[in-house]
Each structure stands twice: as structure tokens, then as C-alpha cells.
């Protein structure tokens, strides 16, 4: 019996030691690779070409800041024709040119920089989405609230996008409320976007055209939930229904549930209210390049999973030859509606 009393803890100790894992720092047995050149640029029609160049850094060891490339020669060609002189370095790795791209331009960027070979990228500026306004209604309504009568302005906008047939298209949507006081900007607010709600009126015999998009298993997160492809609606007309409301009187309750009695009916915290105040809704439907779409989606996946040991690692999409990063482009239709207070 005495022997048993000694044996049991000994066995358990042995078992505990056995099952405990050991951890140690190990040296990296691979090759410490040199920094890779990084090019980032999103081109839009009407804006001069602008890029950011930097170097990647090796992750192991003491962390140093990501360093910009400031000695590069950046040349630009449009539709295979070289264009003027090199882009000018404006500091901190930002390079700008004077050319403003147009829809249909094939822009090619070639970069040579000390320590790197030539790295290049190209992008095709998408055409502007064909959008028509099919409904735009503004109503003023009053309701009895817990703290008195509330006056609303409700804006309903229906936009129709005609997707180009027989080609892959990628879109984003965005809605922002801008505030002005005496004609000066006084803040902005990103409006809620529930893509399933916005696309709810795209009904055919088989149900909503976007059902497959909503059920495709891709978890949509804040950063990319406003992106979609025409995979399920190629060549079709797509209806977007937006509805936003503004509370026009003071001392009201906003969507976040906090009463604002500070004279700032906008709820944006800028403290601006009253006469001279204007509000503007801007709804954007933009076409983006496939590379940019893949870059954004893979970037979001990376952010979501990079610390998870059970997830498959994400390779962030890049279209930079001999480098990393993204050269993308977008072309955006904007619907704007501005109201006096």
C-alpha cells in the first residue's frame, strides 16, 4: 500500500512531464532574402498618376521601419507608347506624373531603382459604370418619439447599373454623408451598407440574382463587404436601392442610441449645427480592376487569419512583375444629393 502511494504520484508526474510541450527559439535555417521592391498605386481617370515605392523588410530580428525608395526612375507608357519624362519624386517614396489617365488606357509603369532590377506593372483603366437613376425621392416625415416629435428627411435612391456582357467586371459601392457649414467642409460619415439590402430588388424567376453571392461561403468583412463581381449577373442590369434618413430637429436619438443634446444634430461630433449647415449624400458605384479586387480580398483574408495557426496562409495577390504590391485602377460613377438644413 505504501509502495502504491509512492508509485501513483510518480506515474502522474511522469505523465505530466511527458505531455508538456517544450518550446525554444531556433535559428532561421533558410536564406535571409534581400528586400523586395514594393509598388502601390491605384489610378483613377481625372487624377494624375501617383505611386508609392518602398522596400519590404525581413521579419526576423529587430524591426526596422519600412523604408521608401527615393532614388527610383519611374517611367510611364500609355497604350504601349512611352510618355514624356520620368515621374517626379515628391518625397517619402511618392512619385507623381502629369498624365491623367482615361478610361480604356493601358498604363504600364517601369521602375528601376538602386539595389533592384527592373520591376514593372500594368493596368487597364476601366470604363465608367453605366448607371442611370431610376428613382430619387425625398420625403419629410414626422413621428412621435419618446422625447417629443421627430422630424425626418428620408431619401430613397434607386440606381441601375448595366453590366457589360461577356467580360469579368468587379465593382465597389460606397455611400458617404458629407457635412458643410457655410460652404466649408465640416466632417463626413461613412453610411451603412448592407449589400443584401441594397441588392434586394434584383429579382428574377429563380429568386434574387445575388443569392449565390450571399451564399457563396465567402465571409464578408467590413473592409471588403462593399465589393462584388458580376459572376452571377454577367451582362445583366443591376438595381441598387439606397435609403437614408436624417433627423432634422435637435435633441434627438441617433442610430447609435446616444442622445445628442449638444447642438450637433449630425452626430459626427463636429459640434456644427444650425443655420448655414448643409448635408450631401454621395453614392459611388465604381468599377475596379480584377487585380485590385483580388488584392483587396486577399488582404482582408490575410488580416483576418494571419495569427491563426489553423488557417491556411494567405498569399496576397500582386500584379507587380519582379516585385510585390498592386497597381490597380478604378473608375467611379457618383450620385450626389445636397440639402440645406
Amino acid at each position, binding site marked *: 500500500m505504501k509502495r502504491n502511494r509512492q508509485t501513483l504520484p510518480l506515474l502522474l508526474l511522469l505523465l505530466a512531464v511527458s505531455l508538456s510541450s517544450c518550446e525554444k527559439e531556433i535559428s532561421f535555417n533558410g536564406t535571409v532574402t534581400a528586400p523586395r521592391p514594393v509598388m502601390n*498605386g491605384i489610378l483613377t481617370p481625372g487624377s494624375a498618376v501617383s505611386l*508609392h515605392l518602398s522596400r519590404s523588410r525581413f521579419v526576423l530580428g529587430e524591426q526596422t521601419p519600412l523604408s521608401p525608395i527615393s532614388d527610383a526612375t519611374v517611367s510611364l507608357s500609355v497604350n504601349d507608347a512611352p510618355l514624356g519624362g520620368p515621374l517626379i519624386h515628391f518625397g517619402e517614396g511618392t512619385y507623381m506624373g502629369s498624365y491623367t489617365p482615361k478610361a480604356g488606357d493601358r498604363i504600364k509603369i517601369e521602375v528601376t531603382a538602386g539595389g533592384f532590377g527592373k520591376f514593372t506593372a500594368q493596368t487597364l483603366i476601366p470604363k465608367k459604370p453605366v448607371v442611370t437613376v431610376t428613382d430619387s425621392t425625398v420625403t419629410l416625415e414626422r413621428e412621435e418619439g419618446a422625447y417629443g416629435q421627430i422630424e425626418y428627411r428620408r431619401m430613397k435612391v434607386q440606381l441601375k447599373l448595366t453590366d457589360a456582357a461577356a467580360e469579368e467586371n468587379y465593382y465597389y459601392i460606397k455611400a458617404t454623408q458629407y457635412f458643410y457649414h457655410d460652404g466649408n467642409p465640416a466632417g463626413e460619415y461613412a453610411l451603412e451598407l448592407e449589400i443584401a439590402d441594397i441588392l434586394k430588388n434584383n429579382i428574377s424567376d429563380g429568386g434574387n440574382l445575388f443569392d449565390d453571392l450571399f451564399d457563396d461561403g465567402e465571409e464578408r468583412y467590413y473592409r471588403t463587404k462593399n465589393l462584388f463581381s458580376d459572376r452571377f449577373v454577367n451582362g445583366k442590369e443591376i438595381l441598387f436601392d439606397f435609403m437614408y434618413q436624417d433627423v432634422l430637429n435637435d435633441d434627438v436619438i441617433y442610430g447609435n442610441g446616444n442622445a445628442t443634446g449638444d447642438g450637433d444634430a449630425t452626430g459626427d461630433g463636429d459640434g456644427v449645427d444650425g443655420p448655414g449647415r448643409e448635408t450631401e449624400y454621395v453614392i459611388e458605384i465604381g468599377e475596379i480592376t480584377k487585380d485590385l479586387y483580388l488584392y*483587396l480580398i486577399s488582404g482582408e483574408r490575410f488580416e483576418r487569419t494571419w495569427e491563426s495557426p489553423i488557417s491556411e496562409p494567405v498569399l496576397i495577390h500582386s500584379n507587380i512583375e519582379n516585385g510585390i504590391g498592386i497597381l490597380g485602377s478604378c473608375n467611379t460613377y457618383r450620385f450626389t444629393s445636397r440639402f440645406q438644413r
Partner: protein
Amino acid sequence: MMKQTLPYLILLFATAHPVFSQRHTISGYVTDRENGEPLISAIVFDAGSSGGTVTNNFGYYSLTLPAGEVSLEYSYIGYGKPKIAFRLENDTVLNIRLDRDNMLEEVTVIGNRSETGVRGSQMSAVDVPVEQIKNIPTLFGENDLIKALQLLPGVQSGTEGSAGLYVRGGGPDENLLLLDGVPLYNVNHSLGFFSVFNSDALKNVSLYKGSFPARFGGRLSSVVDVRMKDGDDKKIRGTASIGLIASKLQLEGPIVKEKTTFNISLRRTYIDILARPFIRMAQEDDGGDVKGAGYYFYDVNAKFTHKLSERDKLYLSTYFGDDAVYMKTGTPSQSSGSEIREETLDWDWGNAIATLRWSRILSNKLFMNTSASYTRYRSTLGGSYRSETRYPPEFGYEREKEETHLTYNSGIRDLTLKSDFDYTPNVNHDVKFGAALTSHTFAPDVISLKITSDSGPQEERIDTVTGSPRVYALETATFLEDNITFGPMFKVNLGIHLSSFHVQGDSYFSLQPRAGLRVLLGDDLSLKAGYAMMNQYIHMLSSNIVSMPTDLWVPATSRIKPMKSHQYAAGIFYSLAHIAELSVEGYYKTMENLLEYKEGASFVGASSNWEEKVSMGRGTAFGIEFLAQRSFGNTTGWLGYTWSKSDRIFDRPGNVINNGKRFPAKYDRRHDISLTAMHRFSEKIDMSASWVFSTGNAATFAFHEFTASDSPTYRYPYYPATYAYVEARNNFRYDSYHRLDLGVNFHKKTRRGNLSTWNISVYNAYNRLNPFYVFVRSEESKDLGTGEWKSKKSLHQATLFPVLPSVSYMIKF
């Protein structure tokens, strides 16, 4: 197809038909004299005609020879070789009982049975004797079939300690693991550190890595055919053992002497029982509310055999085993006994199989084996919450009661009807044919919720079942194979396996040719070549790191196609008389419709929309395997070496991984060495050692960071604005893996004549800290001089098992 089959059948009929000379058939069973156990793959050879055959999985043989003088020799390694000479004038039944020959001092190692050795037509296959498995030193002293198979060339383990098999570049779900002919879907206990095979219950194990006979189908990479012992037909005997983490009991014997036998094996771990008092003490000291918690697994193997007549036998084989994790918490009383709260968590997972088999000798040339079988794997996670509050009378109601039960079930269940036949028309043909029909039920996830809430005046009940619907599928298989002898030099195994799979309105059909050729270049030297096409209609979604109870079997669908492989193999086999057996085999394998998780996807919650989380691609694997084995004398063992390469490419639209470029498979390893040796010092002491070495596992790492781009599509600014740069999937290699295991057995006869054995084993004897998992760790520190914070990242490695001694005691009675 018909164009090819018809001439073959005519040829078969012509060669089978006894028109050339008067022939008679000798048939019967070959069994062990001591316990009546049928001997599988025993050789029956006629010296006069140089004709021979081997016994089937039931110990039955049939040999048709010309009339006249015959001189039969029966042989099975470890047994005497009786010779019987007589004049063959009629069909003759000869049931032979072989005596164990202890004088031979010969230990069976691997692969030297008739069909897999120099003279057989089968290549890429090994028979692994169960006694050998028991002698290999293992983790915690638990001898394990899968761990023994991992020591063979062409077979790799996954991560440290895992029971996964990676055969010739294939994945762990591509192995058909058969227990008495019935598939087992999850062969792992304890996240894969142990397998479900209790070696005490087993008789014979055959592993096929390629050149698959047509009777097997349904998996791409290997077949592990495990046979359970029938049980002694003369006297009751058994073994009992006690080890560091588990105890085992095996009993076998006659129910009706030489007619009905049983063989039952039990195994259970007892970490939970040992830990129980410690958990109780810790809870009492800390005032915790854990009433009980633990983990255990158990296995029960049982087999019953009944001889209905000289021609008919019935077999009932069953296995069931479970892993269980449980925890119970609760507050028995608070506020003067007015409130009771109790929470439980139970997670059980395991297999159950049962098969009823009827074997009948239809004629002395035709043997039938018909079976009905059931197999299921299921994982059940259950949680419950119960609370009861009693109120004083002034409340108007006595009590509030709430009960919630939530269970999550997933699994797979098969019902199979199967009939196969062995037909031996003459000494040059050994024909097997048969058909099987399997009904699969896939239950990816079923969630049931029951809530009962009784709060005095209000009563609420919820009883609902939700989750993915069950999926039903039907799989059929038919096969025909013939092992044909063309003179003394050539032996050919030709076969065809035809299968179909019907699921959710989709049907898949597959015609899989199989071929094997042996060219005997002398008594001790042969060349072999083989080809096999395989199809697999089911996939397993798993973590790729360790085996989890949540590993999920799913069927091919309209989007996820069945996996397919073509494997070509060739080899040289040489027997160095009384010294060693040598073989070198090369293989090349292509695989289609393989699944990998998409970038960023994980196995967690894989049951919902699983088709969207995986990509479908292709793979290739090729390699050379070398095996040298010694099976004579006091020192026996084998040396295996494999050079191999296995990669994947996922480049189809919507299925792109690694930018569509080729990448190494997760368990691609260039070199794999295993050296296993056993030495018998005396009747009382023997020792074993095994050393393994392999190239480190492939893993994906991001070794660069870069500035992320802002985007006009973003609705808010995002920080931090850096991304990690992953150059390619599986771009990094862990350190190489090597380990030495040692074991020593001390045998002693007890006063009652029983054999007792003490086993002392050391796993990882030189304490090699092998990598189980490698990760990047970030550490921040403050520079005391400047006051600045600095960040440093370094590579860290977790090791699972350092040196682990263990001891066990076994008694045979």
C-alpha cells in the same frame, strides 16, 4: 471494354477447361495445429509439377493438378513444412494443420510471403506480422500497428506522434483501412497519438502501396487489410497487460470445441481515473466548481466463428471504440440551498463496425465469401445547463427551472453487402471476382437544441434540430482479377475494377484497370512492374496538423469531383539466401481532383459551405524505395530508405492556390530512413531499437513585410498598413526529424507455466527536440537608454515529446 473482355474470357475458359489432360483438385484449409487459427498466405507447392498456390484470407486453398503422383509441401514461416506424397486419382480434400517449429529460430519480418516476395506477382505490398508489431518500441509502450507501418519505405507519418499515414505522396484520407474487410473511417485515438488497432486482437496485416489488386478500390494511396484472430478452437487462453496509460485484456477460446470460437479484446486508458483525486483536491483547495473532468479512450474487439458444416463457416466480427472528454461543473447550493446550477460538457467520438460473414466452399475450385457489414464514425459534442431556483411562498410561485441541452453530431455511416469468389480453375490461374453495394449516409453536422424553461406562471419549450441535411449516396463496385502463370518465368496479375457513385442526382462511373507483372530471373531474383488506376468518391476535411474528432467525411458532389490516380511502379527483388531480402522499387503517381483548403480557410466550421472553402487541384508523386530485411538468426530487422518528391498544382479558375504555381505537398519529404533491429539475447531477454530520420515537414511562412496600399474602395482608413509577404505555399522546411526508440523485454515462466513479460521502453532515447510546430513570435522591449520601444521577431519551435520512458507488464495464459 467488351472488345477487351471477351477474348480474355475465352482465353480464360480455354486454359481453365480440363481438355488437355485428366486433372483433379486438391483443396482444404491450412490451420495452426495448436489453436486451429487459419493461416493466411500459406504456400502449397507441388514439387512434381512445380505448381502451387497460396491460402486465401480464410486459410482456404485449391490446387488443380494433373492426375498421377503428387508431392505437396505446405509451408508458412515459423511453422514446420510437412510433405505429403500420394497418387492423385480423384478430387481430394486435405485440411492441413501445421506445427509451430521453434527450432527454426526464424522470425518473420516483413514482405517475405509468397505473393509479396521474390516469387509473387504482387509488388508495392508488405505483410506485417502482428508479433513484429508488438516488438517495436513505441510511445508510452503502446504497440501500434500504424506506427509500425510508418517505419516501412514509402510510408510517412504526419507530425510527431500522429497516426496518419502518408503513402507515396498521398494524403491521410486516401488510405483504405479495413478491419476484417470493413472500412474504418477514423483510426485515431488521442488526436492521432494512438491508433484504434489493438494488436492483441489481430492476426495478419497487409499493406498495399501500389499495384493494387482489382478487389480493392475506393481510395487512392493505400490499402491496409487487417484481419482479426478467429480464436483458439481447443482451449481458452489470453493475455493481460498493464501499461503506463492503458491496460488490455484479450481472451480467446472455444465455445463449442473445434466448432465455435470467440476472441475478445478490451483496452482502456485510465488517465482520467488517476487524475480524479488530484482534480478533486485542487478544486477543494481553490474553491472551484469543477466536479469532474477527464479524458479516456477504449476499444472492444470481438469475433465469433462458427463452423456450420465442413463447407460453411459463419463469422461475426465487431469493433467499437470511443474517445471521450467530459467535464461537469456546478454549484450544489447557494443562498441557503435556494439555487442549484449545473453544467456538463461531453465530447465522444469513435467508430463502430460489425460484419456478418458467410464463407462457403461451393466446389473444390470455387470459394464464396458473402458479408453484410455496418461501419460508422461519429462525433458528438454535447453540453447541458440546468438551473433551479426556489423562492419563498410570497413570490406566488415555488421555483424557476431552466434546462438547456445542445448537441452537435457529425459522422458517416455505411451499410455494405458484398460477395466475392475465389476460383482456381487450374494451377495457372487464380481468379477472384465479386461485387459490393454500399449505402453511405453522410451527416456533416446536425445540431439539436432542447430548452425547457419553467418560471412559475410561464413555461417555454424549444425542441429543434438544425444543421446541414444528411446526404445519402450509393456506391457500387465489381471486380475481376486473375493471377496467371506463364511458365516458370512469368506471372501476370490482370484485373478490372468497375465502380459507380450516385449522390444527390449526380452519378459517377469509373473503370479502373490494374496490372502486375513478375519476371523470375533465377531462384532468388525477379523483376516486377505494376499499374493501377484508383478512384475515390469521398473526401475528408481535416486540419492537416493533427487528427481531430471534427475531421469530416464528405461525398463527391456536382462541384467537387471524385479523386483519381494513376500509379506506375517497377522494382527488383532479390533474396540473399540466409542473409537478407532486398528490394528496390520506383513509382510515379499522378493524382487529380485533390482538395486543399483555400488560402485563409480553416477546418473550423468546415461543415458549412465546405465546398466553398476548398480548392480542387492535381498532384504528382514519385520516388524510389529501398528495403533490406533480415529474418534469420537472433538478430533480425530491416532498413528502409525512401527518396521521394510530391507536389501539388491548383491552377483552375476559382480553385487557384499559390498563384496557380506548383508547390510541395505538406508532407513532401526528400529523404526518409528507418532502421529497425531486434536481438534475442536468450529465452529470457530480447531487445529492440528503431531509428527514424526524415526531411523536415514543409510549412508556409511569410518572411517579409511590406507596405499595404490604401484603396478608394475603403470606407474607413485602416491600420496597421502592412502585409506579410508569403512567397509561396510550403516555402519553408522544418528541421529534419530523427529519433531513436529502445525497448527491452524480460520474459519469465511463472509457476503456473504462464509467460510473463516486463517491457521497458524509451521513446526518443537521445531526447531530440523535434519540431512539432514552428512559429514567429514578436517581443517588445524598452531601450532603457533612449526609452524607445523596440520590436523583435524570432522563430520558435514547439516540441511535443521529449525523452519518454515507459514500462508495461504482460502475462500470457
